């Protein structure tokens, strides 16, 4: 058996035609998942913090239950989670392969992750500032909106950055169930068909994307701190 080396592959001129659509798929997957994660995970994080002893409405039982579910979602390695919930995925989106099927496990993994990041960001808001709200006659909702979310925003932005990078990683794993994207392309063409050019292009693009997201996220966080 002859040894194949990574030298073999698509000529550089053919790379964009393969890599750009894959990048588009990754962006679509991460975009949809992030929207779901923020809409569900954000309120969940607020609920976890505010039902804790330090929160606005301590509810030990509610806190314990919600917290337990959030930990559950983060206990499983993503690959295991994705495989384990295939019947559930089938039930919700009617298929177990492709982009639609990837969104379900990615959201289930991302929601508890973001909920914890949200909880941490809100926990950083000094307790005394909540007193300011209470003493000024604010309702709980007003305190959440005007004090917790306002003062916690830099932390929330940092959490979003972290979460988005984690979702890019998950999108590559989801490539295994045919979801497409850069990860899928790298594994399928780059690794399995020994296409060195594609492998290098995918890696370079992934590094670039993650760096850009982190850089932008840091800039946003800094601009939010006065």
């Amino acid at each position, binding site marked *: 058996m002859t040894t194949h080396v990574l030298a073999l592959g698509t000529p550089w001129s053919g790379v964009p035609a393969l890599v750009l659509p894959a990048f588009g798929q990754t962006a679509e997957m991460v975009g949809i998942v992030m929207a779901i994660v923020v809409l569900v995970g954000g309120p969940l994080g607020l609920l976890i913090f505010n039902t804790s002893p330090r929160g606005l409405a301590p509810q030990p039982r509610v806190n314990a239950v919600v917290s337990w579910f959030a930990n559950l979602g983060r206990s499983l390695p993503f690959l295991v989670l994705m495989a384990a919930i295939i019947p559930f995925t089938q039930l919700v989106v009617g298929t177990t392969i492709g982009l639609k099927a990837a969104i379900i496990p990615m959201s289930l993994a991302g929601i508890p992750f973001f909920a914890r990041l949200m909880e941490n960001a809100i926990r950083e808001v000094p307790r005394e500032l909540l007193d300011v709200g209470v*003493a*000024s*006659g*604010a309702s709980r909702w*007003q305190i959440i909106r*005007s004090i917790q979310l*306002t*003062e916690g925003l830099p932390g929330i932005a940092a959490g979003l950055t972290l979460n988005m990078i984690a979702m890019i990683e998950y999108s590559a794993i989801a490539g295994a169930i045919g979801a497409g994207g850069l990860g899928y392309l790298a594994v399928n063409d780059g690794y399995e068909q020994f296409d060195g050019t594609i492998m290098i292009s995918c890696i370079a693009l992934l590094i670039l994307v993650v760096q850009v997201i982190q850089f932008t996220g840091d800039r946003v966080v800094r601009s939010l701190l*006065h």
Partner: protein
Amino acid sequence: MIEITGLTKRYGSHTVLDNIDFTVESGSIVAVVGRSGAGKSTLFRCVNLLERPTSGTVRVDGQELTHLSRGELRVARRAIGTVFQSANLLRRLTAAQNVALPLRFLGLTEEEIHKRVRELLDRVGMLHRANHYPGQLSGGQRQRIGIARGLATQPSVLLADEATSGLDPETTGSILRLLTGLRDDLAVTIVVITHEMDVVRSVADVVAHLDHGRIVEFGRVGDVVRRSDSTLSTALLPDQPAPRPPAGEVVWQLRYQEAAVDPSWLSRISRELDTDIALLSGLVETVGGDHAGRLTVRIGAHLAEDKVVHAFAAHGIHARMAQAAGELAGVPS
């Protein structure tokens, strides 16, 4: 007007506030003093109901607060402005947005909020810093913004918890002048929680001394200062240390005992006793609107003790012979 009766706060078996009673008349400033751990902050948090008292009542302008529901309390709290230690401003909001916060909670229109905020910032002399963030302001400026925010809902009572701690003397003075201005112009009742005797001396009308969760002394500052048996009095106007007297001379500790002491007492008593009075050290101040003083003098030993005591008493001054050597050297503050 604030009326506090039988206020008790326990955490488990630990009693932090033990049956506190006191009343503060409208338009006056009361200072609550005490050491750390005496229960000052808990009292502060119980008066604005950040903590529910275990028992007892808190009335503000006749309204009893302890039994109100959450919603009713939200409305009632608008009558109580709160100024926090180190101001507690939201870092991500400008000075003007911080002041606007309670007005937004109230649901005022943008136009009304804008107008009120300008008035409030002007009141505390911070109009020129309206669009600065807390990080760009000095400690004193932040505290002014904190006071403006406390006043936003036009409260009849303002609670200030250690509002001047950590500020330099000059800035402290300007904050205290601001508070007296509020009392005089707006007839706001002000409760100042502090451990600084300077604050009591310069602004308080009434002082309450909190120790181990109880009020151990309470009264008009001028009265408390002149009480000879008061620990607060010594703290407010400490006895002055003096050097050991030469042979044939005796050191006396003097304390103004009455409200109206004629400031020319020294030369008058000197004439009456027909002797020289050597002034060694002293502190004469205006406290709570009256003269108050603590002085150490030296008088010839040939005069009878009774005679000297009576001569001073006739002018409203309490005189006590300083005998023990320790009393002369390092007097406890």
